[in-house]
């Protein structure tokens, strides 16, 4: 087995919460040596949880543990000249810096890209901010809620075409913190593209990632269609309303099914044993079924679906080549046979949080596998290793830095 793809690449991370840390985690999982720089009070994700038994503890946040696997962790305050000088020394020995401070902050600290590139012309610096480094909203604050809504994703959610009363209610953000992870992946793509290029040119560059744009970009066909062909759609109307597609209640939950195409419809009829009503001319074409969707087709399908479980419908129809699947709850996914066989969730020990399972990664490589080799760092866990062994500080100097609150 060969080395992992990014072994030998050094990444410095000065970021908190999800997007920036997840970007650096993706690089760490690919084998890069990521040094996470936290302010002495720690990444805000340490305060957020989820915590075991809901007891807050800075070393036991599930969010922090997940978004920071495979990293080294050090503490450093950038409030003093000495702290900033140490940061520069770390930059000098890094290929990549991932940071998420508000626009202008790094410049104010004397750590802007123009300064850092003088120290290290190969440096790739990736800045991840809510609205990017330029433009009238660049200094706006935004939490995940604001970005989910401010990017267009929230306004059309939940998409519920058959329940028009939904329009009376507020649009909702997308579930979990999904968009924050998307922004991290988007930033990691640009960062790796620059790293690949630098293997040939020996030159770094600066990358400006706006979370609003990263999330907007996930809707690029919808946006193009809206601008080309129609008005903006909402939570009950969409450009892509396929007939007989959607969330169908069944015996033990919901399935998402698409019976829009002719062969999918016939698979369903086959699975249902071709009921008498299905022979009626009025259901013979896609167009007719679509016209009759709410009044006639649904009332005939729904009672049948309600008598069958998600797994029965899944296997019965997938064997007939019809795309559909259960709406799983989070608690169900780790117990599915498919995820078990693929060993998607992997266990790892952590000195404070104990042995836990973690989602492993977004791709499986035949020759350079991604792996979880090290749990998220304790606050300042690698101070001695990084400051001592790599930057050459002696133990007295280290104690002084600790006493003065720099590390």
């Amino acid at each position: 087995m060969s080395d992992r793809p990014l072994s030998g690449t050094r990444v410095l991370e000065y970021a908190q919460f999800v997007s920036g840390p997840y970007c650096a985690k993706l690089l760490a999982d690919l084998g890069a040596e990521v040094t996470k720089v936290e302010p002495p009070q720690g990444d805000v994700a340490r305060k957020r949880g989820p915590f075991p038994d809901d007891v807050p503890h800075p070393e036991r946040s599930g969010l922090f543990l997940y978004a920071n696997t495979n990293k080294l962790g050090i503490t450093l305050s950038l409030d003093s000249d000495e702290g900033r000088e140490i940061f520069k020394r770390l930059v000098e020995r890094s290929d990549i810096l991932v940071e998420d401070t508000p626009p202008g902050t790094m410049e104010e600290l004397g750590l802007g890209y123009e300064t850092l590139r003088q120290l290290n012309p190969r440096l790739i610096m990736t800045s991840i901010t809510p609205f990017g480094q330029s433009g009238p909203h660049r200094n706006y604050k935004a939490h995940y809620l604001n970005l989910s809504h401010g990017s267009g994703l929230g306004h059309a959610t939940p998409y519920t075409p058959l329940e028009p009363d939904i329009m009376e209610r507020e649009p909702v953000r997308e579930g979990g913190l999904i968009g924050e992870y998307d922004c991290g992946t988007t930033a990691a793509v640009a960062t790796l593209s620059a790293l690949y290029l630098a293997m040939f040119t020996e030159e770094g560059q600066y990358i400006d990632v706006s979370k609003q744009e990263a999330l907007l970009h996930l809707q690029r066909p919808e946006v193009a269609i809206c601008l080309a062909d129609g008005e903006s759609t909402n939570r009950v109307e969409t450009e892509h309303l396929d007939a007989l597609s959607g969330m169908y209640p069944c015996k033990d939950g919901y399935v998402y099914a698409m019976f829009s195409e002719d062969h999918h419809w016939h698979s369903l009829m086959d699975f249902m044993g071709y009921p008498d009503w299905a022979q009626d001319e009025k259901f013979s074409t896609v167009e007719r079924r679509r016209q009759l969707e709410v009044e006639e087709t649904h009332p005939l399908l729904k009672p049948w679906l309600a008598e069958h479980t998600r797994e029965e419908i899944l296997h019965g129809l997938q064997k007939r080549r019809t795309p559909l699947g259960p709406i799983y709850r989070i608690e169900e996914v780790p117990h599915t046979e498919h995820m078990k066989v693929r060993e998607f969730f992997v266990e790892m020990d952590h000195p404070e949080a104990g042995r836990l399972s973690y989602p492993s990664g977004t791709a499986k490589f035949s020759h350079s596998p991604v792996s979880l080799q090290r749990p998220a760092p304790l606050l300042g866990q690698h101070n001695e290793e990084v400051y001592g062994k790599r930057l050459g500080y002696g133990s007295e100097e280290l104690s002084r830095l600790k006493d003065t609150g720099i590390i």
Partner: protein
Amino acid sequence: MARKPLEGIRVVDFCWVWAGPAATELLAYLGAEVIRVESQDHLCGTRRRPPRRNAPPPDINCSTTFNCLNLGKRSITVNLTQPQGIELIKRLVKVSDVVSDNYAGGMMERFGLAYRDLQEVKSDIIVISMSGWGAYGPERDYRAYDPVFAGLSGFYDMTGYPDRAPGKVGSFGRCDLSCGNAFTLAILAALIHRAKTGEGQFIDVSQWEVMNCNMGDAYMDYFMNQRNRTRVGNRDDHMAPHNCYCCQGEDKWVSIAIATEEEWRSLCHAIGRPELADDPRFADAQSRRRNQEELDRLLSEWTAERTHYEVATALQQVGVAAFPSLNRRELYEDEHLAQRGAFVEIDHPEAGRHTFLAPPWKLSSTPAEIATHAPLLGQDNEYVFLELLGMSMEEFAILVGDGIVY
């Protein structure tokens, strides 16, 4: 002209419909030469996709969906049901770096174009295959569109109102595009690995797994506490207020999130209700969360008198995170996005001029860009077969005559 990151990288692209093309489009933005393998008999579903319900299917070169998801690519037409077609593909693979597909159920194997077949043709080839369930496992042959694997991951169960069914997200294909990022990241990692070691490899991307990764903290809660996290509308475990509030106009809303006591005080003053800052019902985040319905009612009274941008501007001035919930047309008209060049116009020989989103990253010395419009079906047959493969006109004419290139 600066060298683009993936300049000189050639991709033989079997991806089709939504997720795959969205992914290889990112490679094109980064400078790779992406050659889509199509055929007259096996058209990409998006080439005929009507823009909206009840609209007629478009001409195969004029679909907005196709033209948006295939910017900067080339197109060749090859009949893959014929052995000569497969041979032709192998000749192309010999001079390429990456082969990509998003078929479920072993389609590439049936073509005789599995990883091991392609490795024989070019030993350091990078092959990436993406599908809903992934390339192995008991359900590997199962098919999925975006909402199917999104539903498998727990994402839909976590989206929507607590008192309603799981919520589908409103943007069609957004999870496909999310997977496109993961797919591109994997290819970049494999290219770096190849540059260092000379080795190619096979990459298996399960879209279900990509989505699971995007729900990571919810899984951690399950593993820590056996708790099932489910949908909570706009609510948050820690912050309150944390919701969308109705504004002037039809279906206009603004999102407001309060993280600190300082922000809470600023909000109370900004809405002209300074006394609320000292109201014991709202004394700290926990109390505010307990009384958030009342809080939402009070805030809505203020937002309802204003436009969503007015609310955002007023609150941002005092350091409160507020931003409109924008629809797609409003995003296009947004001054900030316009100033950042988020939208670009691209001319297409048959479909005319259309507006698309620019690439989502701003790289200082090698800007990603949309080099050309999406390809007409088979527009690059001559370039690929005559120029790249150095085929004679005679041979090319025979392949066209025999229906191999068609």
